[in-house]
């Protein structure tokens, strides 16, 4: 049952990942990417990572919908009604990525992975919370700072108005 679920999710994840770069419609590309993320969320659930699985589903839906807005804004051909190729160095890119996959796969198969140390805790969510509020607090603080910097940076970069010019003067 679990094995079947794994293979179904894994094949769908990769297939929809490939579909992202094969379909003409940008809306379809975005939602193919979302399908890939949802499969990965399902795989995390299979690994007993319930919190992270649900979190991936939650965040990726929101993220892809925001992406959909920008994609329609910035693509010449968002609905793919006029098929056109938007690719450069196609052959090189394909070669490089196949080579990278071959190298990674060889490494994965040939590396003698260490045996499993320890057992999963009863509640991995609790363990994660303990870790980021305890020994891994620095990671969390780093993430917090990065989020703050991104918020400020992205607003500064993308706005063309100052602090006091409102769009709709009242």
């Amino acid at each position, binding site marked *: 049952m679990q094995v079947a679920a794994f293979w179904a999710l894994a094949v769908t994840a990769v297939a929809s*990942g490939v579909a992202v770069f094969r379909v003409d419609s*940008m809306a379809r590309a975005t939602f193919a990417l979302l399908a890939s993320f949802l499969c990965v969320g399902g795989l995390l659930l299979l690994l007993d990572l319930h919190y992270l699985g649900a979190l991936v589903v939650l965040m990726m839906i929101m*993220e892809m919908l925001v992406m959909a807005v920008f994609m329609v804004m910035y693509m010449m051909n968002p609905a793919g009604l006029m098929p056109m190729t938007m690719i450069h160095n196609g052959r090189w890119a394909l070669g490089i990525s196949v080579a990278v996959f071959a190298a990674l796969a060889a490494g994965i198969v040939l590396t003698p992975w260490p045996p499993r140390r320890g057992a999963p805790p009863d509640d991995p969510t609790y363990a994660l919370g303990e870790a980021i509020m305890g020994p891994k607090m620095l990671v969390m603080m780093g993430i917090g700072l990065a989020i703050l910097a991104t918020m400020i940076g992205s607003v500064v970069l993308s706005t063309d108005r100052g602090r006091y010019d409102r769009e709709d003067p009242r």
Partner: protein
Amino acid sequence: MTLDAFLLLAAALFSVGLYGALSQQSIVMLMMGLELMVNGIVVAGGAFWYYIAPGAADGQVLVLVAVTVMALEMAMGFAVVTALFRARDADLTDDAEDLRG
């Protein structure tokens, strides 16, 4: 379900994303490639946690960081595209070639 299977899946997602990031002209599509690469890292992080060291929370923290990185990458990426577009009507990587340093 073995560690190898999960890692091969992660490598496949990473390579598909790499292809997209290298080959797409549109910056939006390029970012989709980057997101797919990070997606592979999420799978690998979860699999390492489960099969190698489930006792420690390091793998989970890695997944959390990867998911955050995706969101930040996208926010920053779109801010840059918006700035580029305002400055010179460009949404293709090839139009921004002079930005190479």
